[in-house]
């Protein structure tokens, strides 16, 4: 897995690629919570994810809960086919805010 966080105007963009499993999920958790603890809304780009297991999903859920508590925007961008298979299987596709463009997410944030 590769994880790269960039600062956009009013949110952080976390771009993931590769395979997210038990070996890499602690790194994903750290990246997600790092942005949220800094008070930044977070958009997670999952377009280049070709595998994610329940440990990776747990990191995403932890981010969802942390963002909700802190009243920060949080969403998933361009979820790849394999990642969507897992979200659907666990019915989390109905819970996460999923976007097809970063502009859509940015439009949900306070000006």
């Amino acid at each position, binding site marked *: 897995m590769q994880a790269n966080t960039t600062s956009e105007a009013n949110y952080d963009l976390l771009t993931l690629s590769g*395979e997210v499993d*038990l*070996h890499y999920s602690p790194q994903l958790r750290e990246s997600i919570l790092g942005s949220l603890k800094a008070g930044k809304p977070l958009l997670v780009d999952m377009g280049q994810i070709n595998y994610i297991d329940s440990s990776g999903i747990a990191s995403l*859920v932890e981010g969802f809960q942390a963002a909700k508590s802190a009243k920060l925007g949080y969403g998933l961008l361009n979820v790849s086919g394999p990642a969507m298979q897992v979200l659907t299987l666990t019915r989390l596709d109905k819970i996460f805010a999923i976007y097809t463009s970063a502009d859509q997410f940015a439009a949900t944030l306070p000006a």
Partner: protein
Amino acid sequence: MTKIKKLLEFQFPARADQLCQVRERLRETLRACSKSEQMVNYVLLAVGEACMNIIQHAYKDEPGDIILEVEKHGGNMVVFRLTDFAQHKTRGEEMRSRPLDEIRPGGLGCHIINEVMDEVQLIECDSDCRNVLQMKKRLRTPRD
């Protein structure tokens, strides 16, 4: 009588850093059995979840080994067996899914395994300290 063909068998250390290599070997085997990349992904996920359960809950992150065996039974049934030698004996109730309407991290592995696989069975082998998890997946059609 059902024809059984051994497709894969290997032993690996029960560590998170091994999972990628396990998936790589299993992916190759599954692609030879199914043309459906979606089915391959689902099965990779379920077997990965089962390995993860052994690492975290059976060995509790202590050193140990796992044996993965894959067999084809007849034209369309693939059987996966994961054997560990952990002291902790996994019980049937530990393989149950949690309610999905509880939105919290963790606890989804058993749900995934049970959703993907057609049969999941814990085989107790107390006499030689082995735990065997057997999972069966029927391919939709022989040419799926």
